[in-house]
């Protein structure tokens, strides 16, 4: 890459995680932001750029006392924060600002001052052509492609259950995870039916929490208390929010384009990746992500999971915080995936992957609508 590199110099989640009835969504943003500032040894006076989703950036800037020269309110659901990182990198490279804070906070369970799940009527064709048939919430939208996926690759619903089982193994190693008890495939298959073939334990949690990142240019990054985590590659793309109109139910075009763009930008191969985070609102999404990122051929991800390759000790450690299925999921999960990538590259994750040097975080938002991919590394290329 010709441009100046950019690094994460501050990263933190909210002080509490899980059920936080005593905090508004706005304060969750600020709580995470203050923790990230402390992590970087900064105050708001050092911040000249702000990006957030859910809460509007002008609202948060005013609340936290930030006077920005760069603002990004990109709000495309769960991967908004990956796009913020990509846009922030460009802004720093262009000289629009020097030090950017990206925040997320969401009262997804307690619903204190919460924006909630967006209405699907005005300006959205899904309100007219999908909602009337019952596709009105993530469990009846995000999930619809999977029976086609299973049929095309001769897989079963037990293959979906394996994803939840594998991620619970990681969650067991993470003291902050919401669910830590071991799971079996039978446990998952026998849990309450939500939307066939998805049982409760194939669906993400609904929790409260947040996270924040602070980015600056690589030449300044060495002056911070924590070792820099460099942004090696980024990508973004969209296919569209109507689940009925995706071109192919066995793959995500947004995943493929965002992922390939990030790999091309980083100039690395799949084999260079030590650690993987893939948005997992539901158990099928990591299977799509592993395939669409090119870690295996179409239809082979379930085998990787079943054979333990994504579990602790495996060659492709994936969703090592326990993921949205076991760690936490406030509604827009992407920030938590990147927080875990940063922890792994810093070497401080609760379930640390030995010698993790390069991590990819792949997000999706608006069901399979918008994807962002960020590759993090501990060294400049």
């Amino acid at each position, binding site marked *: 890459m010709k441009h100046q590199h950019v690094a994460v110099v501050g990263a933190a989640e909210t002080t509490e995680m899980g059920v936080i009835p005593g905090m508004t969504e706005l304060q969750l943003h600020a709580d995470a932001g203050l923790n990230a500032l402390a992590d970087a040894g900064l105050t708001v006076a050092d911040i000249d750029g702000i990006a957030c989703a859910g809460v509007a950036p002008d609202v948060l800037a005013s609340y936290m006392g930030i006077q920005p020269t760069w603002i990004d309110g990109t709000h495309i659901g769960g991967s908004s924060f990956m796009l913020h990182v990509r846009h922030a990198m460009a802004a720093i490279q262009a000289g629009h600002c020097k030090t950017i804070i990206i925040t997320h906070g969401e009262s997804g369970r307690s619903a204190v001052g919460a924006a909630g799940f967006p209405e699907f*009527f005005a300006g959205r064709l899904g309100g*007219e052509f999908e909602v*009337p048939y*019952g596709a009105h919430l993530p469990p009846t939208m995000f999930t*619809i492609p*999977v029976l086609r996926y299973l049929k095309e690759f001769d897989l079963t619903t037990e293959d979906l259950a394996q994803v939840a089982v594998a991620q619970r193994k990681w969650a067991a190693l993470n003291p902050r995870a919401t669910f830590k008890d071991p799971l079996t495939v039978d446990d998952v298959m026998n849990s309450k*039916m939500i939307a066939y073939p998805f049982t409760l334990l194939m669906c993400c949690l609904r929790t409260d929490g947040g996270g924040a990142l602070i980015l600056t240019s690589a030449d300044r990054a060495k002056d911070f208390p924590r070792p820099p985590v460099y942004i090696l590659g980024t990508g973004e793309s969209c296919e569209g929010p109507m689940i009925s109109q995706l071109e192919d139910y066995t793959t995500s075009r947004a995943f493929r384009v965002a992922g390939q763009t990030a790999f091309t930008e980083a100039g690395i191969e799949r084999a260079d990746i030590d650690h993987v985070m893939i948005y997992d609102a539901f158990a099928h999404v990591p299977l799509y992500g592993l395939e669409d990122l090119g870690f295996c051929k179409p239809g082979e991800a379930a085998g990787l999971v079943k054979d333990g390759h994504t579990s602790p000790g495996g060659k492709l450690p994936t969703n090592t915080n326990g993921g949205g299925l076991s760690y936490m999921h406030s509604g827009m999960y992407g920030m938590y995936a990147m927080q875990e990538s940063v922890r792994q590259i810093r070497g401080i994750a609760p379930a640390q992957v030995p010698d993790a040097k390069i991590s990819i975080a792949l997000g999706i938002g608006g069901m399979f609508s918008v994807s962002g991919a960020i590759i993090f590394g501990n060294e400049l290329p």
Partner: protein
Amino acid sequence: MNQKTKERPLPRPSPESQHFWDGTKAGELRLQKCGDCGKTYFPPRPFCPSCSSRNVSIFAASGKATLYSYVISHLPMPGFDGPHAVAVVTLDEGPRMMTNIVDCDQTPEALVLDMPLEVSFARQNDDITLPLFKPAS
């Protein structure tokens, strides 16, 4: 969406989609086709999403389709009693469409991917008739 209503939420036709809902009311499943590149598409818009041409026309589709994918929702949904399939069908003309499958048990055994279907117009009120699908006769 108002969860307290007992009626299913109904579409609100727009200037770009009115022809579609006029069609279902008249017993026609209306799609659009590009006069330049030949693309048949849905949902409605007054231009071609493949080549950007405004030279598009409206025509009545066959109403034949196959079952592409679905879930059987166990979540409460206004207008539905108990588990119900939220389905996507592939129309014989190519486009896909969200719908419900009627005149069919809402079970995995009865709902088989790729099964042939045909449109079944379901009047909701004076303005709205929904295009649902049933197993082909």
